[in-house]
């Protein structure tokens, strides 16, 4: 008996490798990005404070989505891409 596969689909294009900007995690600007769930900010703030023992933290900045239930807006992603070389994303569930 021949059946049609209910999971079948053609893979979407994408997945091309993008060259990452070189980063020095001891000195470069880092974006801390919260998914806006409770405790995400507290977690990232705590990490930032801990990193203060080994590096300057005045160029480690906090960013968040307006809603935990929506994807990060494009302008936020563009802003982070333009101003940082590294990012730390918290998925706080």
């Amino acid at each position: 008996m021949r059946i049609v596969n209910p999971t079948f689909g053609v893979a979407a294009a994408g997945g091309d490798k993008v060259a990452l900007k070189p980063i020095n995690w001891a000195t470069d600007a880092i974006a801390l990005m919260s998914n806006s769930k409770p405790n995400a900010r507290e977690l990232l703030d705590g990490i930032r404070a801990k990193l203060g023992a080994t590096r300057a933290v005045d160029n480690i900045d906090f960013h968040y989505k307006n809603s935990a239930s929506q994807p990060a807006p494009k302008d936020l992603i563009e802003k982070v891409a333009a101003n940082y070389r590294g990012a730390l994303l918290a998925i706080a569930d």
Partner: protein
Amino acid sequence: MEKRGITAYVIATETFKPLVLAQAKARKVEPRLIVVKHPIGGLNAEELRERIEAATRGLTEATTK
């Protein structure tokens, strides 16, 4: 973020690691994961301290290799 050339680490709990991996597979990216104990939400400051220490340790190890 990595599709914009930004090196990005994701902090996820062990419970949500399979979700992150499945999503990364669908988007054809290799996630840089820092896994901590579940949960993060609902913890008080004392409980959260352990997650902060674990995440900082994970980030430091990953970025000083």
